[in-house]
């Protein structure tokens, strides 16, 4: 990976990647693995980007897909079935941020299903519903209903 590509096409979007990877991992080690894998795949698939969407959308989509694939692989390896609302193990590593409210919010997000996590992350990143629907592969209406439901669930989890 050339340092130019890394500096221009990955570093400005590393925040997106970090936020997504944090939501799908329970330890610092896993987080670093997921982050590196996303960076690697962004670099490897750069030629497939045809400019039909924004580069940031491309990075969102890739990050989510890679995290979902990696989490699936990891679960298959453990021969462990993940339920829709799987509660992650509580550990020191979970508390990755200095802001305690943000840690609690992440803990709550991690209790959502994998797809709901993706939806709420995109929503919190202020992506338009149309773009979220496009990334997740569902309708605009479905996203709107889903976000309302997820927000209610998060509220309950945080209280």
């Amino acid at each position: 990976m050339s340092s130019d590509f890394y500096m221009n096409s990955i570093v400005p979007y590393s925040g997106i990647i970090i936020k997504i990877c944090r939501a799908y991992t329970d330890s610092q080690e896993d987080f670093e693995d997921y982050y590196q894998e996303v960076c690697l795949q962004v670099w490897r698939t750069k030629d497939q980007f045809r400019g039909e969407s924004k580069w940031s959308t491309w990075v969102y989509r890739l990050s989510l897909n890679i995290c979902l694939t990696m989490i699936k692989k990891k679960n298959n390896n453990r021969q462990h079935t993940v339920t829709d609302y799987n509660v992650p193990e509580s550990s020191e590593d979970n508390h990755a941020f200095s802001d305690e409210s943000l840690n609690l919010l992440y803990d709550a997000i991690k209790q959502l299903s994998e797809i709901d996590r993706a939806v709420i992350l995109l929503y919190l990143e202020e992506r338009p519903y149309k773009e979220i629907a496009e990334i997740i592969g569902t309708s605009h209406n479905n996203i709107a209903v889903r976000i309302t439901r997820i927000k209610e669930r998060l509220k309950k989890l945080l209280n």
Partner: protein
Amino acid sequence: MEKSIETIWKDGFLNNDALVAPKVNNIYNLKSKHIISKFNRMFKRNLIGLVLGSSLFLIYAFFADILIMGIGTFIISNAIVIVNLKLMKTLKNIDKNVSSYNYLKAFDKWLKDQLRINRKLARIYYPLFFITAIVGIWFSGNFQTILSEILGKPHQIYLVNGFPILWVLPIILISGLMAIFGDKIYNFDVNLIYGRVFRKLNEIIADIEELRN
């Protein structure tokens, strides 16, 4: 007043420490370890399969009155296992205290050497398996019954000066073809089982080479 999740999110990430990216070095360390341990697992499983398969076949051969076939298959299979176990021991000589790239290159070289030896062996053991099978049938107590079962109707063996020439010629021909194309059959065989791992290994090496340039 209670903060909304949107506010928690925004405020939480106002602090720059929250978004410190991990270093993207050693990107292939884990991948290298995974791919090599995956190959080792598959390879060991394959060898165990050969030992178990040939042992079970030996027991079956004893009861099915094709003992020579059973013993031959058992000996050839286990000879393959012994050779490959010896080859596997040399894998331990690869220095692990080097970069992912050098480690993968060393593994790739070991793999190529191992495949080259096995390709040569395949040109011997494929015909041997075939000859063992035929000899096993030939010397079985109920050869005519087995032959009839294979061909579907009762058969007579035609002998030329007491020699079953019509049988021996095709056997020599097929064995010869197996000796000539044994390496190709082996390649096909190996790619069926390990093809994905080989492709992944080449992909990783190519990626690292591109990253290094």
